[in-house]
């Protein structure tokens, strides 16, 4: 459910962002650049392709000035996935074994195959490997990142790979996801697109995008790219078999009653 939820959010993000940018401008930035930013935040290729399709359907409808805004929006949404916070005392970790970080004020997080990150001031520190980070739960991830200074936290966030972002997106708590959807809805409204959650169950989430005329522009079924291509016949069959069972048992009852009458007479 969490995974689907976030994939739907990713879908909205990529569509609204790519839709709002032109393909080629006289300067260097292109829709491909926007797609690259989307990729860096872990958005799926399906969502990015959906964004491309939306854009190419009406390439002239979107002025070039919104290009940078679109990229900024992607960054803004990305920052909602994970932000820096106050440094918290480091909790001992038992899953890793090796070298300690280099920086003096860096918590002593043991790492096995760490990644050395260089700060703007030239100092270095080591974070855990991408595989280890992805393997963590959401709480462990946040605890790990909060164990660094805010500057180092930002450096780690800037260093996150698309796969790491994707794992974060999958694990983000539902209330935070809803906040992101609300933020996106506000942003999309400014672009003349209304986003509504059409259906939400434990297994599915369907988000619809409509233009200012109320016409459906796109429907994103929460990252479940494989469609439901069968009708649910269970209720129909239950009714049919109930009727048949009722009929057969009634026939049995009537025959039995008739036999009894005959025997009595």
């Amino acid at each position, binding site marked *: 459910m969490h995974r689907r939820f976030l994939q739907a959010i990713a879908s909205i993000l990529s569509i609204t962002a790519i839709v709002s940018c032109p393909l080629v401008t006289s300067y260097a930035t292109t829709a491909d650049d926007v797609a690259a930013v989307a990729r860096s935040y872990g958005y799926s290729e*399906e969502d990015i392709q959906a964004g491309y399709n939306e854009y190419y359907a009406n390439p002239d409808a979107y002025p070039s000035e919104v290009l940078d805004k679109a990229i900024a929006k992607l960054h803004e949404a990305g920052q909602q996935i994970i932000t820096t916070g106050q440094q918290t005392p480091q909790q001992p970790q038992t899953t890793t074994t090796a070298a300690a970080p280099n920086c003096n004020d860096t918590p002593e997080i043991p790492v096995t195959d760490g990644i050395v990150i260089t700060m703007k001031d030239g100092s270095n520190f080591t974070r855990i490997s991408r595989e280890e980070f992805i393997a963590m739960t959401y709480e462990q991830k946040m605890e790990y990142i909060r164990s660094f200074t805010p500057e180092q936290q930002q450096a780690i966030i800037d260093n996150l790979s698309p796969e790491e972002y994707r794992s974060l997106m999958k694990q983000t708590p539902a209330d935070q996801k809803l906040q992101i959807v609300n933020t996106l809805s506000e942003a999309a409204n400014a672009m003349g697109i209304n986003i509504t959650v059409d259906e939400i169950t434990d297994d599915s989430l369907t988000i619809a995008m409509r233009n200012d005329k109320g016409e459906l522009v796109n429907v994103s079924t929460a990252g479940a790219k494989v469609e439901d*291509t069968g009708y*649910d016949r269970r209720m129909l069959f239950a009714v049919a078999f109930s009727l048949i069972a009722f009929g057969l048992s009634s026939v049995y009852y009537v025959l039995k009653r008739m036999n009894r009458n005959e025997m009595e007479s």
Partner: protein
Amino acid sequence: MSKKKNDNIFIHIVTPFIVLALCVGILIVSLIKPYDKLKVYLNLAFMDNLKSTPENVGSGLVVRDNEIVDEFDGVTYENGEFIRPQFGELYAMLSCSAFDTPIPVYWGSNSELFELGACQSSGSVIIGENGNTVISAHEDTFFADLYKLKTGDTVTLKTNYGIFRYKVKETMTFNKKDGKYVAPSDTSKLTLYTCKRDILGNSDERIGVICEPSEKKFYKKAGEGSTK
């Protein structure tokens, strides 16, 4: 004597209802498949009349039915200009040896569009473009005979910007949670899938075919900015 008379009255009253219940139950079970088939043909024969309008259903879906070019006599090109569809737009007709009649293909997918024909995922590339074109439809209706497609069969997609032929390269079965077959790809291919046949209708398994392009005919030369 009186009791027997009462019993006879009871039996005479109850019997028609019992027979009715039995008949209705049997009819429901036996008519499901013919009804689905009939629905497809009715939908194709009286497309405009039977379709729900967005005003009726309140979803905002605007179904745009286009007349798809069936025969094109002009010059065609291997690379050409696309006409990009909008959500809910009929933009292609799919035909192959497995289907009795051409199947309408709509851009985008939701439950209402699945009632009208096959649906193409808006997360896949449009027909004729480089990448994975993913089309699905209900197993009970439009893709009821998809399982008949075999390796080497030809699948034809006619659009208003060109005609595209594909050869079935492989058949597949996969779980609905496995998104690898519907994911974008660098190579050009057509992916068709539907539910695996199941008596209860809903199945987590999907069956389908992967096709590779064998012929591309665009009606217009490529125009600037019209393709990715």
